[in-house]
């Protein structure tokens, strides 16, 4: 097997245990993309091994290969010293490899025990034997999972522990966690790390995928950095800083959401009062939400996902029928108007899910430029789509916003996530908006595109737009916002000054812990 010069260096310390997983020269090509190329990783037993890299670096592909979802085009996989070929997740599980996905795969209407047993009925039956085994695993790794609890009653952190338990129940000795902290607040992250340390103490190997460098440095024993599909280095966290890791990840300096001088004015551009979105049964999705955004101000909304952020955005955009309260943009009352009228009155909208709400994937870029601007020049004139003008304006966006594409006639699907997002940002900044709603604008984009999008939000602010920024990335919120509101169960429960707030404080407010006064006002 030809070894290249960039073979990973072993950490300085003597290996603690023998190797649980050994990957050599793993390569995987997709049409037009090399997802993985000459990946070499050694995972020791009884350690937490972090894989870091920016979005699109090839981490997910690598993990899918290790979990048998996709076969590699080249290279070898050794598990416990034995070379294996994994052609399905079932084979991976049989080899003791388990995976916890970022999006949980649990049936809400079943109990924890039923979820764990589902698909593994042959191991310990479905009755008392299974329950005893679940309790045993839960106790020995300190997971604290109640087998009889209904999954729908569990919080995000507990659901994640159920997923981990599922994997352990199936006999996994190597556990892959794909961005496990993305859905957790800081306190839950600490709990998760406690659980992971228990696992490694029992001799299991944990593969931890993340791009949050501070977390990786605090929990991992070894860190392998993946860049452009290949392993560039394996480092020891004790001798490495986040900055060094970041530079290994991007191969250059890391962009930071740096704060700029305030441009906030007195003029209110968005005035939301008493916005409520009732549900036929139970708690409203939005409950008496009131806030204002001024010209030149960025208002950040922090919150654990699913606490009403998406509903808030959609209610402001007029996509949620049945909402009450008033929404005024630039002095014009938009309550009861259609989404189109709201867009025409100057709202730019970067949706949370760009594939679902932001793009026509099979349509060329110039048609995507027209989308959302069907009633405005230059896309449309007198009821007719002006292809030439729309194409020219798409080219302007491509140039100004650095969208990497051969041209405006390429279907949107052919672009990478970051370039798709840059196109959306460029489109939504067209037509002189007064309010920009940016929902998770940098989710799933690479570091380069992230920096560009941050710049655009800052430019929007400088040019006197009001910006509503929703993000799960607390650094992004703190770095870009002039003010942060925390949303919890559909209500705004606290306002913070980003210059003084810490992620931990935000985390407390997001979970409702230690913030009783806001709760009592109901």
């Amino acid at each position: 097997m030809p070894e290249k010069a960039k073979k990973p260096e072993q950490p300085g310390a003597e290996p603690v245990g023998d190797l649980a997983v050994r990957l050599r020269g793993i390569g995987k090509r997709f049409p037009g993309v090399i997802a993985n190329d000459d990946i070499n990783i050694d995972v020791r037993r009884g350690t937490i091994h972090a894989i870091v890299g920016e979005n699109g670096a090839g981490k997910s592909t690598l993990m899918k290969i290790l979990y048998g979802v996709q076969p590699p085009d080249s290279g070898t996989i050794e598990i416990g010293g034995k070379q294996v070929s994994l052609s399905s997740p079932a084979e991976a599980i049989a080899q003791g490899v388990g995976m916890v996905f970022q999006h949980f795969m649990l049936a809400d209407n079943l109990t924890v025990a039923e979820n764990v047993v589902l698909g593994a009925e042959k191991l310990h039956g479905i009755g008392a034997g299974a329950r005893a085994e679940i309790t045993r695993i839960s106790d020995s790794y300190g997971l604290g999972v109640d087998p009889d609890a209904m999954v729908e009653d569990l919080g995000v952190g507990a659901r994640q522990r159920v997923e981990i338990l599922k994997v352990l129940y199936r006999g996994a000795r190597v556990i892959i966690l794909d961005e496990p902290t993305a859905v957790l607040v800081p306190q839950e992250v600490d709990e998760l790390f406690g659980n992971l340390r228990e696992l490694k103490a029992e001799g299991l190997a944990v593969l931890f995928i993340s791009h949050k460098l501070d977390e990786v440095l605090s929990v991992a024993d070894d860190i392998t950095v993946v860049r452009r599909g290949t392993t560039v280095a394996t480092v020891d966290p004790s001798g490495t800083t986040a900055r060094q890791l970041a530079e290994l990840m991007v191969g250059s300096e890391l962009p930071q959401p740096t704060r700029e001088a305030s441009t906030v004015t007195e003029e209110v551009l968005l005035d939301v009062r008493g916005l409520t979105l009732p549900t036929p049964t139970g708690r409203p999705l939005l409950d008496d939400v009131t806030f204002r955004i001024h010209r030149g101000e960025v208002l950040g909304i922090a919150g654990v996902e699913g606490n009403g952020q998406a509903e808030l955005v959609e209610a402001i955009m007029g996509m949620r029928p049945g909402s009450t309260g008033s929404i005024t943009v630039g002095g014009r009352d938009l309550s009861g108007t259609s989404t189109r009228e709201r867009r025409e009155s100057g709202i730019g909208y970067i949706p949370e899910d760009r594939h679902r709400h932001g793009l026509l994937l099979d349509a060329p870029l110039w048609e995507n430029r027209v989308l959302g601007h069907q009633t405005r020049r230059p896309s449309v004139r007198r009821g007719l789509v002006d292809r030439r003008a729309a194409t020219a304006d798409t080219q302007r966006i491509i140039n100004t916003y650095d969208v990497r594409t051969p041209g405006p006639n390429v279907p949107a699907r052919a672009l990478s996530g970051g370039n798709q997002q840059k196109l959306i940002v460029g489109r939504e900044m067209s037509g002189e908006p007064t309010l920009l709603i940016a929902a998770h604008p940098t989710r799933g984009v690479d570091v380069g595109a992230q920096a560009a999008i941050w710049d655009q939000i800052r430019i929007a602010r400088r040019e006197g737009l009001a910006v509503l920024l929703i993000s799960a990335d607390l650094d992004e919120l703190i770095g870009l916002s002039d003010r942060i509101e925390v949303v919890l169960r559909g209500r705004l429960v606290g306002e913070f000054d980003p210059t003084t707030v810490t992620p931990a404080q935000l985390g407390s407010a997001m979970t409702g812990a230690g913030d009783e006064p806001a709760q009592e006002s109901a």
Partner: protein
Amino acid sequence: MTSLDPRIVRLLLAVGAPVLALGAAFAITSLVLLVAGDPVGEVWSTILSPPETRNVVNIINAATVLYLSGVAVAIGFRMNLFNIGVDGQYRVAAFAAAAVAGEAWLPGVLNMVLAVLVAMLAGAIWAGIAGLLRATRGVSEVISTIMLNFIATSVVAFMLRQLAVREEGSNIVSTRPIPEGSRLPGIPFGDLPNLEIYGFVVVAVAVGFGYWFVLNKTRFGFDLRATGRSAPAATASGISVRRMTIATMLLSGAIAGLVGMPLLLGSSYAYGSTFQSGLGFAGIAIALLGRNHPVGIALGALLFAFLDEQSNPLQILVGVSPDIVAITQGVVVLTVVISYEVVRRFGSRLEQRRVAAALATERASGTDDKQEARA
């Protein structure tokens, strides 16, 4: 591949898919013939023999009717609406038009125009029911249009009995015939007398052009296509999906209303119990085959009409039932769906590779520049 102009590649792919589908359909039909012990070669040589002038006229006339049906279905397809109800819509429409025109309230050509307008209105209303149900109650248009087909059959049969006039010495009941002055004259074709193409072929061509223009050039068409590609994205862009659903069904139904007009105004002059049925279902296959493209639908309609016409003498010449082409036509619907998906995936992979290659060269030259600058 990458050296080819992307437009040419796209054209090749567009042509490749139906060719692949037809090839597969012919192969499967041949297989059926083989299994049944029928003479495969003779069947195909009969079907594929050059048609005579008389047959050409029949083919064009049948294709005119099928084309309108295909366009009506295609309008729905462009918005992801599966209007299976074209069949019921055109029958309701043709009956309404025949009933009104038979009364001859207006003179001459005006009566004919009125008949066409009534047909479009009736078709639109009939399809609009399904659109309304879909937009307000979320009822799948597939289910409701199928139901409406059955209802159409019964309603038309009932109404026909109410209005019918029975011809002397015949069991055929039909509406009152349209007066001579309100009939659409045909276009003479070839040297033989009495060979005429439906005058309505002009309208069919105009409908095809209008379909292309409205869908590809107007804002309405853009909204319609955008909704078809992604309803959530359309909603976020400010399109009212409900309104578009109703508008699209109305439009599809209005065109469906025209399907019976060439027959009514050009040959039968009345709606009777023998009025041709099943044209709406052929339209689904033709719209699929033609890829919802105005020219593609025309080619599909001509092909279906050609197969129908050329299979007529099969029973006499080779002793095989002409129904064999129904197998071909049916199989085409399946193979078309498969081959388009295969070609679409291939095409999008090709496109991604092209984009990646274009960007790779760009990036490579970019980094070279940087390195040079550094050095």
